[in-house]
């Protein structure tokens, strides 16, 4: 078989991935095995210090609480996104609904977080409303705890779950549901046993699209979290910028990358999609690209920090 010009077309994306994903990842791998410089930076001497430091209960604790928050918010996101996607796929006004899902992206992410602070604060709109209705005397603290973090995370990543679910459900042949009903399935039974198995690729994509960025979340726990909502993203940022232990920051982010990649591979396997072989075409592009997406998000603190921080000189 003659090779088409396909590999030529792929060249820009391969170049892009090499320069902006593989090379940085390589640097992170190398840095994690180097000696921490006295005040930041690295000394070119091999050591396993960073990995020894990770075997420390404090890291296990942060990792565990990050997993809990990320898994919880992802599941809630999916539970909301599923009916949304279903409704959109069946609606006559798909374009309008799609636009509505996308519109929030027109506003800066940080501004949307600050908007939540304005809504949920002790002196915020929600508390004002509750007081006006006589449902609260003082104020209820909604903000600065894990629940607030989870809520804002769900809000932020909901579109990432709705879009893949919508596109999968949209391709689903709804006459199958009718057939199931004709054959005696209840309405829920038909959805559970016919719709869900058919869209599980989309569910998986939606899960990954939400879980992975949430796992590396940085700005949300920083701004709406309290004293106990410290997540791995914050830990990496603090090790990098405050403690200035670059190898440790690299090692932590590498562990996250490995864990997410492993998780993705296991999920793909469970879903019957082969990563190396042909597999099913429908979802493959999105899914295989996914581990690549994990890294920039894990590295997100680097980018986010200067944008929102303001310190001594302000």
């Amino acid at each position: 078989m003659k090779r088409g010009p396909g590999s030529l077309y792929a060249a820009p994306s391969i170049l892009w991935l090499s320069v902006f994903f593989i090379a940085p990842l390589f640097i992170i791998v190398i840095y994690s095995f180097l000696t921490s410089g006295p005040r930041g930076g690295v000394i070119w001497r091999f050591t396993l210090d960073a990995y020894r430091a990770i075997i420390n209960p404090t890291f296990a604790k942060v990792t565990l609480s990050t997993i809990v928050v990320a898994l919880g918010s992802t599941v809630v996101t999916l539970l909301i996104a599923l009916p949304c996607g279903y409704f959109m796929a069946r609606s006559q006004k798909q374009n309008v609904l799609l636009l509505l899902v996308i519109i929030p992206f027109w506003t800066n992410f940080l501004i949307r977080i600050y908007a939540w602070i304005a809504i949920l604060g002790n002196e915020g709109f929600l508390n004002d409303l509750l007081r006006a209705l006589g449902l609260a005397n003082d104020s209820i603290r909604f903000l600065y705890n894990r629940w607030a973090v989870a809520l804002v995370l769900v809000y932020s990543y909901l579109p990432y779950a709705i879009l893949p679910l919508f596109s999968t459900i949209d391709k689903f042949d709804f006459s199958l549901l009718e057939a199931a009903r004709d054959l005696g399935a209840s309405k829920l039974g038909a959805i559970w046993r016919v719709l869900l198995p058919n869209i599980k690729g989309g569910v998986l994509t939606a899960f990954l699209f939400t879980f992975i960025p949430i796992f590396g979340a940085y700005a949300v726990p920083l701004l709406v979290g309290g004293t106990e909502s410290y997540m791995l993203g914050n830990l990496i940022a603090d090790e990098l910028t405050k403690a200035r232990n670059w190898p440790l920051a690299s090692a932590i982010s590498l562990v996250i990358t490995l864990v997410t990649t492993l998780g993705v591979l296991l999920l793909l396997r469970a879903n019957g999609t082969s990563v190396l072989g042909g597999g099913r075409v429908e979802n493959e592009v999105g899914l295989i690209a996914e581990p690549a997406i994990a890294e920039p998000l894990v590295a997100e603190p680097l980018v986010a920090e200067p944008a929102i921080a303001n310190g001594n000189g302000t």
Partner: protein
Amino acid sequence: MAKKVFWGVALASIVIMLSACGGSKDKLYLYNWTYYIPDDVIEDFEKEFKVDVIVDAYSSNEEMYSKLVAGGSGYDLVVPSGDYVSIMIDESLLEPIDLAMVPNLRNVDPSAIARIGFDPGNKYSVPFMMGAAGVSVNTTRASGYEHSWDIFSKPEFKGRMTMLDDMREVLGAALKYLGYSVNDVDPAHLEEARLVVESWKPNLVKFDAEAFAKGFAGGEFWVVQGYAENVYLEYDEARWGEIDFFFPREGVPMYLDSFCILKGAKNADTAYDFINYMLRPDIAARVSDYLMLPSPNVPARALMTEKPNYSFADLAAGEFKEDLGQEGLALYNEIWRRIRVGN
């Protein structure tokens, strides 16, 4: 879509490159704190000296230092705090200062210069501004407290207080509360300080250096540790009387920011012009008016039109933050991580 974004980015970078290359005027690459020097002060310098000033901003010493160590050079002038001046001297990142080029240093308060331990004799740094984070209280909500760090142990303000997300400030507060130095590296003293912070922690909403002033201005937080300039800039000016900003009587960790010329600076002459310009009484007064901070520049004090939020006399019990050394820093990091992560 992706294509459009690509061309947009490409075009933007070309414009930036062209604007950076344009003109043959002398340049000054200044790496400065965010919101530290008003834009018009810099524009006036550009006009007066016929130069272009390219400003980049950082929000913490750590951020600035990390970028410089990572090779983000090309800057001529930086404004580190004292502890970082000594670090940067040790790491030979700084060019020695020729004080003959900075005659206006004579304007700076000798009593401030006398307290400089990080660079005695100003071999590498020229002092610019000094101050400290303190505690701001919303007096319409909170009362019956003393001007002490003890305020953070008061359960009646539970859920309404924040401290900075900054280990030197928080541990420094606890160390001062216990009567130790803000630069103490004795593990036993630091363990005591950790227990003090742990006892404050349940009363705190969060450790925050970003949004606390907004929360304070909105009535969400009643007691916040932070810089006066952050708090007053956010708070409605008509109600400034409600704010009680104070330095706890036990003492506070202080900063002194200095101009330093980076090793290998290409525009050292312009950098000297800029330092000297910033130490001119009229200019120093404009900066202090903008930040509403007391000026270390003696003749500038008479020219100020705003009343500063505190005076240097209030800082008598304060102590400059010094470099902790590598082991000290590691110890602080470990303790701070334990506090942040929880036990």
